[in-house]
């Protein structure tokens, strides 16, 4: 089995992220599976950026601790990460820029490759932004990959630039490739062999996948105010807006974001918004407005470590209970949390249907780890996913014309009232933030109040009956230990499981609210031993499950350093606790 991790580090502003992205893309195109993880501070220039790409001929779910090839564009990368490189690995660096005297070389057997990035640039009069292509060329040689694939990627990447820029970038890659060729000892083994069977795959981030899914689902209005880790969703949709006929609005603040989307949705357009914890905090009053006006909306809530501004570019799952409780008053909301890009695609499409079926806010809870990491996924899974756009009880003009009287908040058995769109003949109604009766007019009468509260609550029951999905159990049912988690933690858990198949199984929650109390309780009661794994300090899923089922979770693996959980940490914890 081939399983290689390449880590690239340097100062922010030198195209390191692009280098990693292109590397993952090239590996994917060559038929390999790839997973990317990046760490960077909230700075534009300076600071320390690293990106790692794990490449394998088997499915990869997450990053790993050990590094095979470390490419250092500055001294800090060398000294911080050299110890992560495993026996027999390679460290590439610029001897002219990084003085030998300052290096902390680890005590294991490594190959050091000297590539004078800076003098290559100077010699060939290339600009510093092309440094990343020298690095990519070097990596192409080290991995035994075909330089032509890189050249094709460069041509694509710079399609809008003139030929001279393209040629210079291609030259930079070639120089990096050739220099490395000269430096490398003959017959070293770390190469990626050419694969016979190349399965077409996408190399895509969680943000891009949510965006792609929203286009597929018929979302035609997206509003956001930039905030990591969800900004890239705004960038992606803004870049595609004219191609797919979507209006993408960068509004003045998050309060405006959600209210514009509610307006567009009231007027009949499928609408989505995206933010992170701080921005979402500003939206909370309007989540409640969506609840009482029964306006569909899909909200992408990308978590990052808080409180307040917290650690903007890092990852955490600290907002589950915040989202669960967001919005004053009582109304149903639906919480979904994809664990990988494939789930992100399917759940986003589902979210749009659920929002319109239940006429209530639906959340896609992500985090920096899922949303910003690129990973490969079979193209056929995305292309072949069959779904139907279900607009719930949205009335057609024909259906509306047949009604003698239209009541927006009609009391119904399932709690869902027929919805008409302003502009349709006979649609006259109001969506009211005040408590109201069936016709939408303000009412403070006790019996009217009770009926409308019960009507809205009923929607949660209907959801549990018709659309709720139980958590999925991965692995062998018979193993003595069950890991329990949600969202992006699926990645390191499945990665750990791929190595030790019979040690544990994994219960993955992606439908987080409303929960079917009885079914969940009886399922949880069948497990002999459990280990709750979460990327937060409060074991928030654990708290939620305890609230719903009364069951307590004793053993926990919680991480809240702003870093994702590593498969190695899961295996350590398991061998310790079994």
């Amino acid at each position, binding site marked *: 089995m081939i399983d290689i991790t390449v880590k690239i580090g340097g100062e922010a502003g030198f195209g390191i992220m692009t280098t990693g992205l292109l590397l993952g893309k090239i590996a994917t195109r060559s038929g390999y599976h790839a997973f990317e993880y990046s760490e960077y501070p909230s700075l534009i220039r300076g600071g320390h950026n690293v990106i790692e790409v794990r490449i394998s001929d088997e499915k990869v779910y997450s990053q790993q601790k050990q590094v095979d090839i470390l490419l250092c564009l500055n001294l800090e990368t060398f000294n911080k990460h050299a110890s992560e490189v495993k026996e027999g690995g390679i460290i590439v660096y610029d001897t002219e820029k990084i003085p030998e005297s300052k290096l902390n070389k680890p005590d294991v057997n490594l190959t050091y490759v000297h590539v004078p990035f800076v003098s290559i640039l100077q010699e060939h009069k290339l600009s510093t932004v092309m440094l990343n292509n020298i690095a990519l060329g070097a990596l192409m040689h080290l991995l035994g990959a075909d330089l032509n694939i890189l050249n094709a990627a460069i041509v694509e990447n710079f399609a809008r630039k003139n030929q001279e820029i393209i040629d210079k970038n291609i030259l930079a890659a070639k120089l990096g490739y050739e220099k490395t060729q000269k430096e490398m000892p003959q017959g070293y083994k770390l190469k990626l062999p050419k694969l016979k069977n190349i399965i077409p795959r996408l190399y895509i981030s969680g943000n891009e996948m949510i965006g792609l899914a929203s286009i597929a689902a018929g979302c035609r209005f997206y509003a956001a105010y930039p905030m990591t880790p969800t900004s890239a969703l705004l960038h992606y949709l803004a870049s595609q807006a004219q191609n797919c006929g979507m209006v993408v609005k960068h509004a003045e603040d998050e309060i*405006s974001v959600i209210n514009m989307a509610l307006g567009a949705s009231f007027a009949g357009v499928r609408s989505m918004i995206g933010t992170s914890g701080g921005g979402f905090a500003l939206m909370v009053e309007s989540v409640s407005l969506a609840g009482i006006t029964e306006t569909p909306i899909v909200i992408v809530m990308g978590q990052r470590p808080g409180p307040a501004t917290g650690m903007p570019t890092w990852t955490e799952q600290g907002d589950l209970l915040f989202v669960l409780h967001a919005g004053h008053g009582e109304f149903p909301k639906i919480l979904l949390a994809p664990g990988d890009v494939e789930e992100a695609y399917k759940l986003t499409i589902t979210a749009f249907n659920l929002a319109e079926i239940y006429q209530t806010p639906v959340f896609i809870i992500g985090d920096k780890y899922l949303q910003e990491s690129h990973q490969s996924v079979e193209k056929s899974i995305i292309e072949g996913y069959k779904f139907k756009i279900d607009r719930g009880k949205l009335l057609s003009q024909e259906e509306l014309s047949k009604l003698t009287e239209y009541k927006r908040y009609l009391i119904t058995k399932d709690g869902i009232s027929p919805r008409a769109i302003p*502009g349709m003949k006979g649609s006259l109604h109001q969506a009211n933030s005040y408590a109201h009766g069936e016709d939408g007019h303000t009412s403070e009468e006790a019996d009217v109040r009770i009926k409308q509260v019960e009507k809205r609550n009923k929607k949660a029951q209907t959801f549990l009956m018709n659309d709720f999905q139980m958590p999925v159990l991965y692995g062998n049912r018979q193993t003595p230990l069950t890991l329990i988690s949600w969202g992006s933690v699926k990645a390191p858990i499945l990665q750990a499981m791929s190595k030790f198949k019979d040690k544990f199984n994994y219960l993955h929650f992606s439908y987080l609210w409303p929960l079917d109390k009885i079914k969940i309780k009886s399922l949880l009661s069948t497990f002999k031993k459990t280990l709750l794994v979460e990327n937060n300090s409060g074991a928030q899923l654990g708290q939620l499950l305890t609230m719903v089922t009364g069951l307590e979770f004793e053993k926990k693996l919680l991480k809240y350093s702003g870093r994702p959980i590593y498969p190695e940490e899961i295996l350590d914890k398991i061998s310790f606790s079994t």
Partner: protein
Amino acid sequence: MNNNNSIPPTPASPKPVAPVSEHTAGFSGYFPTWCPGCGNFGIWQALKMTFNKMKFDPDRLSIVFGIGCSGNMNDFLWANSFHALHGRAIPNAIGIKIANHDLPVVVIVGDGDCYGEGGNHFLHAARGNHDITVIVHDNRVYGLTTGQVAPTASQGFKSKSTPQGIIEVPVNPIALAVSQGATFVAQGFSGDMNQLVELIEKGVAHKGFSLVNIFQPCVTFNQINSYNWYRDRIYKLTSENHNPRDLNSAWQKSQEVTEKIPLGVVYDVDRPTYTDSLPQLSGKPLLDSALNIDLAQFINDFV
């Protein structure tokens, strides 16, 4: 100024005084619960007269109401409406307009709602030249919450929340709108219904962001800015004394806020609206765009 023994306004929940069939009543809803003599009555009548005059169909008119005595008009004026949160009516209205730019979209808000709680939205809606009409009930107080200062209150105004008098100077709605890119700015008085109808009609017909700031005496919580107080100061803008297409002249008029106060169209210029600037919307409203789309081109970007 004595606000202490003023009567509180009637509760937000109106009793259906005269239930009417929604399809035959034009725009008339329930009978208002405002205090007798409240300036809101004049605005309400003027709105209904304008919509009838413009031959609007209640099914095809969208109104977003703010929260306040003014916003309570949601139950007195029938149209396809969205009763918003306090301060947030403007973004709702922008969303509606983007979704269906064929619908006229009108926002009915109080001065606290529009210039205080929602002040940021107001600035940005003007900049964007979103094609909505914002009708502000400028009574210089918070009516519904029983008489605190509004951002439009004159310096020194005593209220429940400023018993010693407000320290801040008032916002200047007209100057604010003109300076932030609004393309139609007018000022009216709820004591002059004929002019109000004219201003609202012009505002709604205008393509782009329009503000109609309306002096609306609150007879319960503002004893100072009464009908007579306004009548002593207002004068009408005419083609002789003002050119609304001229920014300098509009700016000058916007500074007349104490001794002489102008009524009429202060500013009226043309600039492409937000929705007219989006190629996605050139054919038909967003609402009518197809939901199913060939995904191949989007998927292939990631191969």
